[in-house]
């Protein structure tokens, strides 16, 4: 048995070796070994030669017994390995084989299960593909193989002592082939039984002859190398996993995404991104401003600006006062007024005013940079993989399940996410082939826009009117509660009723929900701008008032201090007077701190309102709907209140406007960013929980646009808008005289000039003054504008080219499809060619073919009808076409060329092409057919 097995194995291995030689993957180890082998080959020549001769002898002998194994036959058929068979045996073989085949076919029909033929078919298909891929290389290799075989035959017949290099090379090649087989065996769709037996034999062979060829060492090295490769792959995968685990809240967001779709998840991703940005801002402000001040600045109580005034000291620690950010909080490092105008502080000579100014600017600089960079990256991403949309549904269907899931919870999430993603794609699809009355649609859209513009104008006017009125109210005494709070009430009413109104109007437009969301966002944004406007107006009024007040206080303070000194000096010049307690010094209103407090208050109240809205509007409502539903007259869940949907537009805008507040306020309240970081952190957890616990997915779950650029665009706009007031106050308002790092200067930016003059050499100041010259700045701006224009034009051109290319590819694909469909018409010609060959096939059709026919073709002739078989085969494609969808003709094509390609090269057979090499024509004949089968 062992001997026999070895023989069958050799055949297989030869086949496999030939087959795999041509493949792309290279076996590095074997190359190495070859090199090594060259050195030692001379010494070992004698023994190896003997071994190889023995081997080849065995081969010859065993070949006769080969037909016993069915699997071998299939292999032989595939690869035409018969070329190394001596031609004199051919006839005998053929007879033998025919008999065998008939028997086997009978047996197989009984034995094999339902799926086995299918599998075989697929195997063969696969193999065919490989052969076609192989192309020329394979042919070359085959030539080599034949040479080897002839050499082995000659060596066999010639006398034993002559040891040729060829023999050695042959042995080497055999071993290599086997090694290759061992390494590639996993790639073969064989049954395990077969794999195992083949593997064992191959290993035995390699072990036996590797020693002879001096390859024992290489084996270990090879194993080690492979191990390391696997380890490396595993490590890379683990590292990937680790990396995803390091992304904060990734799992949370994925979970939300799987139930609510990518559009809701996009909000959370935006929130996370925002958190990251704010963390950097927080680090910047805390690291460079607050912590140096706390560590090295003058302590609390040392200066008037760092002390609670005497009048407020009683209540400074009350909660109600602290809650309004007055009292001790107001006189802390969290606000602008606390900082001293000392040029340098501490032993580090840290220039705090300078640092304060630079940090204030760099907060904006960094934010701008990061927003624009992320916009650019998103734009890149969205264009990078935009063209792979040929197989959306197929990929979703066949590749979306993750086969590594072993946890029920994960599996549930995965099911939900697959369903959601299907729904998203379905919405897209439905949207794209909706046929509709374009004119009506256009009319409705224009109408909706007109309505919304009317709404916006109306609310804008209302805000303007109310603000005007409030200015008159503020001058009057004894106004009522309503008059005092009119602006706020109107604003919140607008904010409450306008968005739903917009949504109702937007229903007219019937946009895709994704586009609808953008419109909605844009409109509410416009509405909220009014909010911002009123807020800023009120603030400016406040500031102007404070500035006027300051002038008065400045004199009082001056005179008080002077008087104090004078009185103490006049009374008693020998005793040093007790210094005036800083709490008693009269001080200005410090408008910067007022502005900062205003922003902090606004932020905190915004946080509270958001959280309470979520709690009441979502959670309580969900609880009510869920539990009261048991004892209610109508179905609460399906009827009126139902569960809330996640309000993407409202949340995104809330986030964006909140960020605007932070940017505006952070210059005057350095601690604001810290509050915001806390807010974003809690809001991440809170909103995730609220969404998962009390919201329902949207009726039409839609896919978020690939880039979050719309959100980013809004953010950029708000950043710009919030930059304006800050820049205005820095550039044109005088800082307070007795608080803040810039006190005593005319303008805040004077700190830069001061630094340049005092700390830098003279020429820097000169350069600076040149650069600041408008004559230089205006051309520079002009140049930038022109560059932007040019780049814009270039990118437009690229876009057009891209669209063109895409169109071309689509057309090509269509063409290909059409061609395939038309293949049926070209079939007759191929058939003629095949008819020429049928005489040879009649007698030698392999059993597998019969199986194919049995399953696929309606006129699948029984294997017993051998003479008529060829005709049946040849005719079947036609019959298949005529028989419409019942028969899959491609299957027949798959089978047929293989048979031809394999059986043509029999030496005894008339070679129709007169090619000297057996297998090559076979392959050449097969080739035109393969691409069809392979594709």
């Amino acid at each position: 048995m062992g001997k026999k097995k070895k023989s069958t194995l050799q055949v297989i291995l030869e086949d496999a070796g030939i087959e795999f030689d041509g493949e792309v993957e290279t076996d590095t180890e074997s190359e190495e070994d070859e090199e090594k082998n060259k050195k030692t080959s001379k010494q070992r020549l004698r023994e190896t030669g003997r071994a190889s001769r023995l081997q080849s002898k065995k081969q010859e002998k065993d070949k006769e017994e080969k037909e016993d194994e069915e699997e071998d036959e299939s292999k032989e058929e595939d690869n035409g390995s018969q070329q190394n068979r001596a031609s004199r045996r051919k006839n005998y073989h053929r007879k033998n084989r025919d008999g065998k085949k008939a028997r086997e076919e009978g047996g197989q029909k009984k034995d094999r299960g339902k799926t086995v033929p299918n599998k075989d078919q697929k195997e063969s298909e696969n193999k065919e593909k490989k052969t076609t891929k192989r192309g020329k290389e394979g042919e070359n290799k085959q030539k080599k193989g034949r040479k080897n075989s002839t050499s082995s035959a000659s060596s066999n017949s010639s006398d034993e002592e002559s040891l040729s290099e060829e023999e050695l090379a042959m042995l080497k090649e055999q071993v290599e082939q086997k090694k290759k087989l061992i390494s590639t065996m996993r790639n073969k769709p064989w049954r395990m039984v077969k794999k195992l037996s083949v593997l064992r034999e191959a290993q035995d062979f390699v072990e036996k002859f590797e020693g002879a060829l001096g390859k024992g060492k290489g084996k270990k090295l090879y194993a080690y190398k492979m191990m390391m490769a696997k380890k490396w792959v595993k490590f890379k995968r683990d590292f990937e996993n680790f990396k995803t685990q390091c992304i904060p809240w990734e799992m949370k967001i994925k979970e939300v995404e799987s139930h609510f779709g990518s559009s809701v998840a996009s909000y959370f991703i935006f929130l996370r991104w925002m958190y990251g940005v704010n963390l950097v801002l927080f680090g910047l402000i805390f690291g460079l401003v607050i912590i140096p001040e706390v560590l090295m600045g003058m302590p609390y109580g040392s200066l008037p600006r760092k002390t609670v005034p005497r009048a407020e000291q009683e209540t400074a620690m009350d909660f109600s006062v602290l809650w309004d950010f007055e009292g001790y909080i107001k006189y802390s490092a969290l606000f602008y007024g606390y900082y001293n105008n000392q040029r340098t502080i501490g032993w580090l000579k840290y220039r705090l005013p300078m640092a304060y100014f630079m940090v204030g600017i760099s907060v904006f600089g960094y934010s701008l940079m990061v927003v624009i960079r992320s916009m650019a990256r998103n734009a890149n991403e969205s264009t990078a993989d935009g063209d792979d949309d040929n197989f959306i549904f197929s990929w979703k269907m066949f590749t979306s399940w993750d086969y590594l899931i072993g946890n029920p919870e994960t599996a549930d999430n995965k099911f939900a996410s697959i369903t959601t993603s299907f729904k998203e794609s379905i919405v897209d699809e439905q949207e794209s082939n909706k046929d509709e009355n374009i004119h009506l649609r256009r009319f409705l859209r224009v109408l909706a826009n007109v309505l919304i513009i009317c709404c916006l104008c109306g609310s804008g006017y209302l805000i303007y009117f109310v603000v005007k009125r409030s200015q008159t109210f503020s001058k009057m005494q004894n106004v009522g509660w309503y008059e005092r709070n009119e602006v706020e009430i109107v604003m919140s009413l607008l904010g409450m009723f306008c968005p739903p109104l917009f949504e109702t109007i937007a229903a007219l437009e019937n946009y895709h929900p994704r586009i609808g969301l953008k419109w909605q966002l844009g409109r509410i944004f416009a509405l909220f701008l009014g909010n911002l406007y009123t807020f800023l107006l009120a603030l400016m009024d406040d500031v102007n008032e404070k500035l006027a007040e300051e002038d008065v206080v400045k004199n009082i303070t001056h005179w008080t201090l002077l008087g104090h000194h004078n009185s103490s000096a006049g009374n008693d010049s020998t005793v040093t007077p007790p210094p005036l307690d800083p709490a008693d010094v009269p001080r200005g209103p410090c408008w910067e701190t007022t502005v900062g407090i205003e922003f902090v208050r606004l932020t905190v109240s915004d946080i509270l309102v958001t959280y309470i809205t979520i709690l009441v509007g979502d959670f309580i409502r969900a609880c009510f709907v869920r539990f009261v539903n048991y004892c209610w007259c109508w179905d609460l869940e399906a009827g009126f209140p139902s569960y809330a949907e996640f309000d993407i537009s409202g949340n995104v805008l809330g986030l964006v406007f909140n960020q605007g507040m932070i940017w505006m306020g952070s210059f005057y309240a350095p601690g604001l960013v810290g509050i915001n970081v806390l807010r974003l952190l809690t809001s991440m957890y809170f909103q995730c929980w609220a969404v998962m616990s009390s919201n329902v997915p949207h009726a039409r779950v839609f896919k978020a646009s690939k880039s979050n650029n719309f959100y980013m665009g809004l953010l950029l706009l708000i950043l710009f808008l919030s930059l304006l007031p800050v820049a205005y106050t820095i550039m044109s308002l005088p800082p307070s005289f007795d608080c803040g790092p810039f006190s005593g200067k005319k303008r805040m930016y004077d700190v830069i000039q001061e630094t340049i003059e005092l700390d830098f050499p003279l020429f820097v100041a000169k350069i600076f003054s040149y650069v600041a010259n408008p004559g230089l700045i205006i051309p520079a701006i002009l140049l930038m504008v022109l560059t932007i224009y040019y780049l814009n034009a270039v990118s437009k051109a690229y876009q057009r080219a891209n669209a063109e290319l895409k169109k071309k590819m689509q057309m090509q694909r269509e063409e290909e499809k059409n061609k395939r469909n038309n293949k049926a018409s070209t079939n007759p010609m191929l058939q003629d060619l095949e008819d020429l060959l049928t005489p040879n096939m009649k007698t030698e059709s392999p059993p597998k073919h019969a199986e194919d026919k049995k399953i696929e073709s309606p006129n699948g002739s029984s294997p017993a009808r051998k003479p008529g078989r060829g005709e049946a085969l040849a005719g079947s494609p036609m019959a298949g076409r005529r028989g419409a969808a019942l028969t899959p003709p491609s299957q027949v094509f798959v089978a047929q060329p293989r048979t031809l390609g394999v059986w043509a090269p029999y030496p005894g057979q008339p070679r129709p092409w007169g090619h000297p090499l057996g297998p090559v024509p076979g392959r050449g004949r097969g080739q035109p057919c393969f691409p069809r089968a392979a594709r």
Partner: protein
Amino acid sequence: RLKNPLLFEQEQLFLPVWQICRFWLHGRYHEMAPNVVPMDYTKDPDVKLPMQLIINMPELKENPFKERIVESFSEDGEGSLSFNDFVDMFSVLSEMAPRELKAIYAFKIYDFNTDNFICKADLEKTLNKLTREELTAEEITLVCEKVIEEADMDGDGKLGFADFENMISKAPDFLRI
């Protein structure tokens, strides 16, 4: 994503340590039915485990296609696996198996009625299993039509292996299957 450690331990299935892996796999195979499967496997006993036992393995338990997977790997197509089929299954489903091999078996898995084509009925079954029948009938028809339209290259209204492979070979995350 949860990675099952068991599934990639046998990457080395046919490397020098393949015997160890085989031993490990045998342990897994044995533990499913300790009284049927002998510990000693040197004599190659002809033992098969029914599908019911195998689909309860933690690796397969949550998989919507577990029955199909087991059926595709069983030699008789009925779902009972001999030990060799079992090893086969693990090796194909392992991450190191090449794309082509996976494509072949994936095709078999998705071909529910084993007619060597993925037809509409197969697609519907696949979809229902993937989404736990949460899509409406129209949505299912729409998706199936789209899949056929996208992937069917020869225009016969169903997916042959060539179509399937062409489609799957371009998929970005197919290797995970």
